[in-house]
Structure formats: structure tokens, C-alpha cells
């Protein structure tokens, strides 16, 4: 048995993989938060609830309608995105002329409503979601055993982040979005339909969260509080990384996930607090965040 600092390699690798998975979710969620914040100037507290909705829609789809995992991966984000756009059109839109904090308070209220509703409907115990057949089992890499689904989660998340990066940095729509982040009034005066752009951006951001939720369904238990537990950590991740760059979100998210996984192996008593401790250190040394710009 190979050991690294007194820990068997298989155990270390397992925790590292869990860390990478958590890190991928941090990356996807903080990316969504950053995209929304860039254009709407709102911190979307509902993000965790929307991630949870993604997981639940996948579970409901499978158990009630026989919707396959692959279909859920498409349908759940679309549904959650559509609901998000309705929320933006009917509620968030009224707050843009006010302080950012009202947006935070409104989305916090929405998160309570969604979480409370799912608690009542499905109870607090988690539901399990089977790993799709094509991804079940694992691959023996010689020195360790790699569960296929877990590898898929990490790859799919990173691909999704890169697709978002491409959309924002390399397409016309992305150019509008970046222009809108800098100066929405000027963009509007060039004839771009900025309110529509804002709605689409919010929809895309929350669809990302739901996508992560579907990915998470087979790994974690599908439960109403899975989102709120995660979102607070994601806030810390956002404070650490800053919301300046997409690649920054990916690197910070994955990196913190790995650090968290390693902490679980070597200092288990700090595993729940390590990310918050890192946040404290970053605030002391580099208050704007690792990739942040002071605006």
C-alpha cells in the first residue's frame, strides 16, 4: 500500500476527487453569480435554491415522468432558467434603481420561499438519485480506482465553464454583455435591447446553477437544504476570488475544493471552516480578492 504522509493513496485520492467535485460546483456557481452581478449588480441569494431546484427537477423527472439523466441535464436548467427569467421580469427589474442590498434581500426572501416549499413537499430527508448506467462503475488507473461518474462531473463542469467563457469572450452576444457590464446606458443608446439582455443573462446564470444541481444529484443526497449549505461557501469563494474574471472563478473554485479535500484528510477538524479561514487571510492580505478589481 502506497502512503502519502501517512495516508493511504486510495483514501487521499478519494478525498481529492470529492474536493475537485465540490470545487467544480464552487466554480460553476461562483461563475453564475459573477455573470449576474456584472450586469444586474445584484448578488443572487436564490442561487443555492436554484441549484437545489435543478437537482430536484432531475429527481422528479426520473421518478415521476421517467425522464432520463441526459434529458434532465438539458430540461432542468431550461426550466429553472425560465422560472428565473420570470422572477427577473416581475420582481428584480423593479429594484435596479435602488441600493444593491435590496436585491440581496429580495433574493434571500425568494430562497426562503423555495426552500420552505420543497421542505413541505419532500421533507428534510435526502432523496437518492441513481448514477446513469453509461457512467456507472469505474476505471482502474493502476494505482487507484476512479469512479466514472465523479470524473464526468469534474469534466462536465469545467467544459461548462469554458463554454461560458467562450460565449462571453468570443461571441457577439458576449460582447454586448461585456459592454452592458461596463456601461448599460451607452449600450442601450446604440440600439441594443438591454432589458432583454439583462433577462437572458439572469436566466443563463441561474440555468448554470441548475446544471450544477443536476450534476450533483447522483453524488449527494437530493435535499431541500443542499443549496443553502453550499451557497454560503460559494459566497466565501467569491470574496476570495473576486468577481473580476471567469478563469479566476474556475481556478479559485477548483483550487479551494482541492484544499478543502486535503484538509479533510490531514486536519479533519478544520474541514468545515478552512475556506472561511482562507477568506480571512485573503481579506487581511489582499482585500480586493485574488482576481478582483477595485471598482
Amino acid at each position, binding site marked *: 500500500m502506497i502512503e502519502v504522509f501517512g495516508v493511504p493513496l486510495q483514501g487521499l485520492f478519494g478525498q481529492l476527487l470529492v474536493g475537485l467535485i465540490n470545487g467544480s460546483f464552487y466554480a460553476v456557481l461562483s461563475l453564475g453569480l459573477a455573470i449576474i452581478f456584472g450586469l444586474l449588480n445584484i*448578488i443572487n441569494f436564490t442561487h443555492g435554491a436554484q441549484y437545489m431546484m435543478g437537482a430536484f427537477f432531475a429527481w422528479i423527472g426520473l421518478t415521476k415522468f421517467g425522464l432520463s439523466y441526459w434529458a434532465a441535464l438539458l430540461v432542468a436548467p431550461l426550466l429553472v432558467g425560465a422560472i428565473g427569467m420570470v422572477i427577473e421580469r416581475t420582481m428584480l427589474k423593479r429594484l435596479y434603481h435602488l*441600493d444593491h442590498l435590496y436585491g*440581496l434581500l*429580495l433574493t434571500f*426572501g425568494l430562497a426562503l420561499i423555495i426552500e420552505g416549499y420543497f421542505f413541505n413537499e419532500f421533507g428534510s430527508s435526502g432523496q437518492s438519485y441513481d448514477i446513469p448506467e453509461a457512467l456507472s462503475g469505474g476505471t482502474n488507473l493502476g494505482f487507484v480506482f476512479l469512479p466514472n461518474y465523479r470524473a464526468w462531473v469534474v469534466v462536465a463542469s469545467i467544459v461548462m465553464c469554458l463554454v461560458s467563457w467562450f460565449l462571453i469572450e468570443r461571441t457577439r452576444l458576449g460582447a454586448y454583455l461585456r459592454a452592458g457590464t461596463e456601461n448599460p446606458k451607452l449600450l442601450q443608446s446604440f440600439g441594443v435591447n438591454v432589458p432583454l439582455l439583462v433577462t437572458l443573462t439572469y436566466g443563463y446564470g441561474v440555468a448554470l446553477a441548475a446544471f450544477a444541481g443536476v450534476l450533483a444529484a447522483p453524488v449527494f443526497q437530493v435535499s431541500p437544504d443542499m443549496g443553502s449549505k453550499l451557497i*454560503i461557501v460559494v459566497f466565501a469563494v467569491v*470574496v476570495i476570488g473576486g468577481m473580476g474574471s471567469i478563469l479566476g472563478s474556475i481556478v479559485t473554485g477548483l483550487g479551494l475544493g482541492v484544499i478543502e479535500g486535503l484538509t479533510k484528510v490531514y486536519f479533519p477538524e478544520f474541514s468545515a471552516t478552512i475556506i472561511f479561514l482562507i477568506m480571512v487571510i485573503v481579506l487581511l492580505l489582499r482585500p480586493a480578492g485574488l482576481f478582483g478589481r477595485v471598482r
Partner: protein
Amino acid sequence: MITGGQERGASGRDYRIMALLVVALIAAPFLGVYPVLLMKILCFALFACAFNLLLGYSGLLSFGHAAFFGGAAYITGYLCKNLGLGPGTGILAGTVCALALGWVVGSLAIRRAGIYFAMITLALAQMMYFVWLQLEFTGGEDGLQGIPRGRLAGIVDLSQDLNLYFVVLAICAAGFWVVYRAIHSPFGQVLKAIRENEPRAISLGYDVDRVKLLAFTLSAGLAGLAGSTKSLVLQLASLTDVHWHMSGEVVLMTLLGGLGTVFGPLVGAALVVLLQNAAVFGRWTLVAQGVIFVVCVLVFRRGIVGEIAALFKRVTRPQKP
């Protein structure tokens, strides 16, 4: 920015309302109102007033005030139950710990403004939640139960509800008075100046960070005082007190009553506690709280007291032709 009710100095009307409130609260237990419920409301009212000092008057949204409220409750519970100290010492120690924690959290959080400030306070409070969860004496999921109320200064038997009631009333009235004086002092004026226009306050030579930190520490200390007192009233300190739901609840109380109004937090706290106690919404409580949040933010931003004050102003001072 967050806008409160209309601004005015300490006024005769405020004093009249306060006098009326004190008289009503002294009479209430003799009129058959259950003292423990009243004490619970008073503690949460103080908590909300402390929070209002921050959000309503300084424009700083702390999403982690449960850390001070619940943390102080744990300290008081530990000292009174496990070490057998008196209630006075317990409350004092809880408050001092909350002040110290407030200073630390405040120093970190004011390094960023606005939305980041809220996220940092939330994250730090969550970190404290895990710390309390792991510490042995807090009893984990069960919490610290059966905290003895003891005798105040060795004389007054606080296990009698009525005795405790008047002590709690005195504590909360004193806390309320501290907030009221702070708001209407020159310090409070600087706070409002920072809320309205921070760069301008800086250019006028105010040490903005110091003022913010002072307000944050004061608010945390008072939240701790409320939490410590609550732990003696209900004889319980649990994870509920340090959970982020609690931080949200105090925001809700303040928002519902009226941000930046003197009496708003009292009204909001009373309403929220009464709704919880009456279990009107049953298992829909979480949803109902969310709905109140949404409604307040969308159509009711001045809160109950703020709306009443605005109405009062319209009626008494008709518009000039």
C-alpha cells in the same frame, strides 16, 4: 442606498411614546399577558434595535448577526450552567465576548463595502456556526438545555417569571436607550452621513473606517446582550441561535418594522415572534417569512412604522398650494 424613515432629532414625541411603552410594559404582566412571551419579544426587540443601528443608520448590511446573538447565549449558558456563575456575571461575560467578536468580525468585514460586506459577515458567521457545532460543551444538535436562571446579585430569585421579567425589561430598556442616544448623538450624525455619501464623509475628514467599526462593535455587543438575556429567559442556547436563519430573521424584523426608524424594530420583532408563537403558518413559516421579505422589498420598503410616520406627516402637514 438604503433609505430609512424621515430624519429628525430626538423629539418630544419619541419620549412620549417611550414613556407610554414603559408604562404599558410594566402593567402588561398584571393584565394577564404571559411574561415569558413578553420577555422573548423584548430580547428580540433589542436584537433588532442593535441590528437597525447598523443597517438602518449606517447602511451596513450584516448577514451574520446570529453569531453575536447566539455566541453570547452559548457563553452565558456555559458560565451559568457548567461553571455555576451568577446570571449577572453570565450576561456581562456574554456581552463582552460579543463585543470582542464584533470587533474582530467588523475589522475584517469593513475592508470591503456593500454587497461584499454582507457576504463576508455571512461567511464569518457560518464559520462560527461550525466552531460551536464542534465544541463539546454546546451539546451539538441538542444545545445547552436547562440553563439555571439563578439569583441576581445573590438576592433576587430569577426563577420567578415576574422577577426575571422586570430585570429583562430594565436590560432591554437600557439597551434601547443606548441605541437611541447613539443615533441622536454627533456619532449618529456621522453614521448617517456615511450612509448617505461615504466619499463626502471622508472628504470632510471623518475617519470613516473607525466610525463604522465602532458602530459594528456596538451593534454586536447589544446583539450579544440580547442573546445572553434570551438564554436565561428560555434557559436554552442552541444551534438555532447561531444559524443563518436567525441572521435572516433579524433582518426581517427590522425590515418589516421599518429600517432606520426608532420604533420599527420593536414592532417588527413583536410581530415576527407573535407569528412564530401562534404558529399561524404552521409548517409554512419559512415560506411566509420569505413572502414577507419579498413584499417588504417590493412595495413596502419603509416598513410598518415608516409608512405610519409618512402617513402621519401627510395628514398633519398638508401640501402647500
